[in-house]
């Protein structure tokens, strides 16, 4: 039995149904533990005070904003190559979740930036590339909403996702060239000596796990909704005939 059989809509509904409550439960548990640990059980930073604790929302959201786009890219490719409808619907379902994550990262960054940098917004490369990512999500969702025929919509948005990925990557390095950064560099890399202190790192890991699970659960839920909506549409069409 191949992995692709799970992409059959009926099978997909079958195996995701029982998993869904567990995924939501695990996401909720991770988020409650991670955020409580992060907010109340870690010390204040000696320079940033308690504002540092916004990283428990900011970092996982920013991580998932990029990963959601990557997931959409992979799902789009699978749709274009193997034409599994669930894949196209999963890409469609992930976009609103991804754009929300982007917005959370931008907003928490702005809230933190006001006391720390003295401004809500700076045209820093990282901030700018996130804003551009936000625009790409908007365009992608608008294209889905504008086309009536579901297969055409899936095809066109898949191509847009691929072309958009190239240009989003290009923009990311272009803005690096365009302006100097205010944002700190990477401090969670596995291959570096100097990273964020363990006291902050472990609750952050739990929060990241929580956001990954939350994204997984939300995308599953939204994909199931899309499949049901498509079934309803098919039933209505057959009734008209």
């Amino acid at each position, binding site marked *: 039995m191949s992995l692709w059989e799970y992409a059959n809509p009926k099978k997909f509904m079958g195996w995701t149904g029982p998993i869904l409550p567990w995924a939501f439960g695990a996401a909720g548990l991770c988020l409650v533990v991670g955020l409580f640990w992060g907010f109340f059980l870690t010390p204040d930073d000696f320079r940033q005070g308690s504002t540092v604790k916004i990283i428990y929302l900011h970092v996982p959201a920013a991580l998932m904003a990029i990963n959601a786009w990557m997931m959409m890219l992979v799902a789009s490719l699978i749709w274009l190559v193997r034409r599994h409808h669930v894949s196209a619907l999963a890409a469609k379902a992930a976009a609103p979740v991804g754009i929300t994550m982007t917005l959370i990262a931008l907003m928490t960054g702005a809230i933190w930036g006001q006391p720390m940098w003295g401004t809500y917004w700076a045209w820093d490369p990282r901030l700018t590339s996130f804003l*551009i990512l936000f*625009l*790409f999500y*908007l*365009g992608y969702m*608008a*294209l889905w909403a*504008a*086309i009536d025929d579901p297969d*055409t919509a899936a*095809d*066109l948005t898949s*191509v*847009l996702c*691929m*072309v*958009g990925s190239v*240009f*989003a990557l*290009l*923009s990311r390095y*272009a*803005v690096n*060239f*365009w302006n100097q950064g205010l944002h700190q560099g990477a401090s969670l890399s596995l291959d570096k000596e100097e990273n964020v202190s363990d006291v902050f790192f472990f609750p952050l890991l739990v929060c990241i796990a929580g956001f990954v699970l939350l994204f997984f659960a939300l995308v599953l839920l939204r994909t199931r909704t899309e499949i049901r909506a498509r079934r309803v549409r098919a039933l209505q069409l057959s009734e008209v005939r």
Partner: protein
Amino acid sequence: MIALLLRDLRLATRAGGGFGLGLVFFLIVVVLVPFGVGPETAILSKIASGILWVAALLAALLSLDRIFALDFEDGALTLIATAPIPLEAMGLAKATAHWLTTGLPLTIAAPILGVLLQLPNSGYSIVALTLLLGTPALSMIGTFGAALTVGIRRGGLLLSLLVLPLYIPTLIFGAEAARRGTAGLDATTPLLMLAGITAGCIALLPFATAAVLRINLR
């Protein structure tokens, strides 16, 4: 392919083709900016190259939905698609026609309009050069966007939402090269990057354009 190019050029330059509209729009945007930011020479000459770039980008955007929409409505696009040239070449011909009717006139007009914006003397040639290098990329990306939205009624607004984010890298390098050149700095790196983006767009985007056209003509 040349016949198609000549046909598009003829259609664009004759009555109702909107050939001059892009240029007039460019002029109006450039005239409006001093009203918005104030008439001080120092400020205007500092932002002149950037304004010219943004205005050129908007003017190029204005005529995008004409690339395929009219042909799609009267059925000519289906006929062209069955012609014995590949759809990729057809997309390239369409983009070339768009560039010849908007990008090239904009490039020629930009230094003249630079006078209105107090562009420093060092900036005239570099602004024209960056536009000459960058506008083909704008036309090619725009052709892809137009092909993407050709089947959608009233897709004009959606087209700008899809295309403008794709214009960002071109704008960054083009405007950066123009700014550096105007300030008398070395502009080689952004110029090379800009040329690279244009070359990459011309090489790859015709395939994406043809792919979405095939989907839309199904």
